[in-house]
């Protein structure tokens, strides 16, 4: 038996949002009487943490701590339109809609505080901890709690805002293909190390070093979640997954988690994650959508590493032990 080692690299980019645009999302923001903020959406959290990151975006924009923002989603009776959670669009599209809504609400909030403090609203700022103060004079302040009470009970004002984000739809030119698929792109580069058993074709991915450029890590712990989980799925796509193992034959499709293969907890590659941030000019606080891209660069990096290890190319996914073994036998027969 020979275990042979190899290393491969791949570099990719990924368009943020629905291809060719035309995918709107809307948000409504309003304050409660005690200065908490409701964000009403019809957007779906698939588990990636949309609700948490939207709360942080709203909190940053209004100038309150995140725990004072409540995300109410998804109910079509109350939530304004969102095209959906797909195409790495959630953070970018919905985040932008929330920023617009939150800015409008913040504007009203500062107007109310200005009236209470008897200053101009343009002279006011938030401290991020729940207070509004006169710029340069932090002792002249009012809490957002009191500001909301004032708006509700004295001034009869609604501290609220409406937000909408739409990248206009692009229609490809039929002959040249001139088009605008996206407004911003995330980037990634992966170096994968593998071991290949040249008698069985079995591959062990020993390590992946993933570098992602994602615009802005709005919540780094959640970014890490998605990039680490995505990397696992990339490895899975490279080596394991298909519903039709003998495609284009329709026979022998897996029907459960024993037959549909994904790497188990004993198959994990040592995973290093590095994040770069080049803010997107139209991203919410610069953020792009890395959710889908997270699973892409590992696939070719592993394919290239396998070639580096044993000198055969498998150009069909998934790169199963069987496909590697067949290629190795051909290689031996040719020599």
């Amino acid at each position, binding site marked *: 038996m020979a275990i042979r080692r190899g290393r491969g690299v791949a570099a990719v980019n990924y368009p943020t949002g629905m291809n060719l645009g035309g995918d709107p999302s809307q948000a409504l923001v309003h304050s409660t009487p005690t200065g908490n903020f409701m964000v009403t959406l019809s957007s779906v959290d698939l588990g990636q943490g949309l609700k948490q990151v939207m709360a942080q975006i709203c909190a940053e924009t209004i100038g309150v701590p995140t725990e004072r923002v409540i995300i109410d989603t998804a109910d079509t009776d109350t939530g304004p339109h969102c095209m959906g959670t797909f195409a790495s669009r959630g953070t970018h599209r919905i985040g932008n809609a929330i920023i617009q809504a939150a800015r409008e609400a913040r504007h009203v909030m500062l107007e109310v505080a200005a009236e209470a403090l008897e200053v101009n609203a343009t002279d006011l700022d938030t401290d991020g901890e729940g207070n509004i103060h006169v710029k340069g004079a932090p002792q002249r302040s009012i809490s957002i709690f009191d500001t909301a009470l004032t708006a509700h009970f004295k001034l009869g004002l609604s501290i609220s805002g409406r937000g909408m984000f739409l990248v206009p739809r692009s229609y490809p030119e039929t002959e040249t293909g001139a088009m605008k698929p996206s407004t911003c792109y995330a980037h990634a580069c992966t170096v994968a190390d593998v071991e290949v058993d040249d008698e*069985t074709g079995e591959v062990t991915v020993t390590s992946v070093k993933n570098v992602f450029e994602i615009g802005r890590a709005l919540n780094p712990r959640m970014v890490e979640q998605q990039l680490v989980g995505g990397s696992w799925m990339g490895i899975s796509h490279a080596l394991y997954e298909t519903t039709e193992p003998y495609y284009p034959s329709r026979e*022998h499709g897996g029907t459960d988690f024993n037959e549909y*293969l994904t790497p*188990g907890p*004993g198959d994990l590659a040592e995973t290093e994650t590095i994040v770069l941030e080049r803010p997107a000019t139209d991203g919410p606080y610069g953020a792009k959508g890395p959710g889908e891209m997270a699973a892409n660069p590992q696939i070719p990096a592993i394919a290239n590493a396998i070639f580096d290890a044993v000198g055969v190319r498998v150009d069909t996914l998934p790169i199963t032990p069987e496909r590697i*073994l067949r290629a190795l036998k051909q290689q031996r027969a040719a020599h």
Partner: protein
Amino acid sequence: MGLVLRSFATVNEAGAALSEPGARYLGGGTLAVRAVNEGDVSVHSLVRITDPQLSRIELSEGRARIGASVTMARVAANPGIAFLAPAAMAVGGPAVRNMATVGGNLFAPAPYGDFAVALLALDAKVDARKDMPMERFLETRGALAKGSIVTAVSFALPSEGGFRFRKVSRVKPKGTSVLSIAAVIEEDPDGTIRSARIALGCMADRPIRAHAAERALVGSRRTEQGIAAALAVAGEGTHPVTDPVASAWYRAEVLPVHLRRLLLY
């Protein structure tokens, strides 16, 4: 029509219930309840036996007798049959092992039934209405007499280090078999192989013996040279399955590789 569970204290009472149309034996539930959950409406009643005798492991005079209701987890935890732990641990994850029974594994179609592969290598005896050697049982398991119930398996304990087991799967640590191999190799003090029984999983629709390889091993030693003839005939008589995990071609290709590793390492 619906579904009913019928519990019986003894094998005899259950036997009659199992003879009825639409009746299916309930062991650990990993096969029977799954079938019901997946919409198998041909099952009208599940029949189980609560007799504690079926959950016993007995060791005496160099033999082990394992009741049909003993779970994989209980097998793996029993120090008297510690050599079997790797085979029991090869079945499912922890929850499945707490449910799946020895009796059930005897009926599991490929690619399942790794424990039955071990029992086949041990040349176990299957206690049903009448006793049957494993190999014969496996050949006829689909056509057991209606109401016939497996109550236990028994086998002679192999000598220290004489039992070897290897399961190959794509997913670790728990995965469905590409193949599994169990072997009981008895060697003379000088290393000459006195007897060999090799059982293969996924190399047919049921566990099968590699008789040609067994014959080739007797009289030689567990060295590269000594096992070469056995490896060359390892695939004789096999009809590997093709399934989502691996093709028959792949299974046939890697059988000698894994048999070599089983025998030498």
